[in-house]
């Protein structure tokens, strides 16, 4: 988990560095009075690396994913709750009370 966190921070830093270099590049182009069509190649490579690192960190950092299928083996409904608010006490079991002694 820690590795995911570190990689995530690293990815965010790379992305912010790419943003800063793009802004600087635009400033440079303004001085040279040229059109700004797209950032230079090294910034694009940096962006792709930052994207890959951030995605990997986002998938590994939160831990185990929970299943969402209603019929998967963990989520399936096994039984409904037994309506204990309507429970009645004159069933056959009342003839066999267990032996419990209370000391308080």
């Amino acid at each position: 988990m820690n590795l995911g966190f570190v990689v995530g921070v690293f990815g965010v830093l790379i992305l912010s560095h790419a943003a800063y270099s793009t802004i600087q590049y635009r400033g440079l182009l303004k001085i040279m009075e040229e059109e700004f069509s797209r950032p230079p190649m090294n910034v694009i490579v940096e962006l792709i690396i930052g994207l890959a690192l951030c995605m990997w960190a986002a998938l590994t950092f939160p831990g185990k994913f929970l299943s969402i299928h209603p019929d998967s083996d963990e989520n399936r409904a096994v039984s409904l709750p037994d309506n204990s608010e309507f429970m009645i006490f004159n069933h056959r079991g009342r003839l066999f009370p267990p032996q419990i002694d209370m000391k308080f």
Partner: protein
Amino acid sequence: MVTKTEETELNQFEIQVENGGGGAWEYLCLVRKLKLRRSEKVLKHGSSILNDPRKRSALGPDEWTLNEQVAIAAMDCQCLDVAQKCIKVLQKKFPGSKRVGRLEALLLEAKGLWGEAEEAYSSLLEDNPLDQAIHKRRVAISKALGKPSIAIELLNKYLQLFMADHDAWKELAELYLSLQMYKQAAFCYEELILSQPIVPLYHLAYADVLYTIGGIENLISARKYYAATIDLTGGKNTRALLGICLCASAIAQLSKGRNKEDKDATAALELHSLAAAAVEKEYKQKVPAKLQLVSSVLRSLKI
């Protein structure tokens, strides 16, 4: 609705606690959360916690909820002196409380003094006429006295006020089924399906009721709801699969003379054979000894 993970967890705790390992408090919390009725075990382990003054003080403020849980479990097992002691403890701690008043009336019910219990509930209702639990207990009293029609009347009045109460709709459906009033039971199940469409067990119960009422439109609807159950459970519900086979053969018998549904006859045949194959596969996996019996039954149901 209890899921499979919760059930396995519950069983693990139960085995652990029965064999003398720790974890009684977690087991009791899980039973309380899932609202299950395991009165003997709750009584045994809850009273063992309450008898031990060290464990009792370790619980802190949860001690009173445990007292309530053990009191209700004791009433279910007919250990009325245990229940009386728990209620006395709670009365000392919370004098004049409505919740304790409800428990006392419940104890009167468990003793079989229906008249006094009814009076106690009416007096509690005067103070707070919108208390859901008290209305439900009055229904339970009529049910225990063997008067399901009065219980149905009270429950209908309750549901006019509190329409979103799933347990009450389920109880009403069961009461109607016990009186064989199938159309009204089907209405209750429709309400349940509308409010909780993801739970496959309601679809299954509705399909069963429709199949019982009979008649060709109901059988076609029942087949649709069995199919919906199979969809929601990923094909693992054997009862729905068998339901489809039975529906298909009943529909075929009823519509022998008429050729109404040509386009859905082919779909019905395919559904029937697929369901039969799935049932046989499951029996082969789980109970191979009974496979022959099942195959012969399914063959006799073939259209």
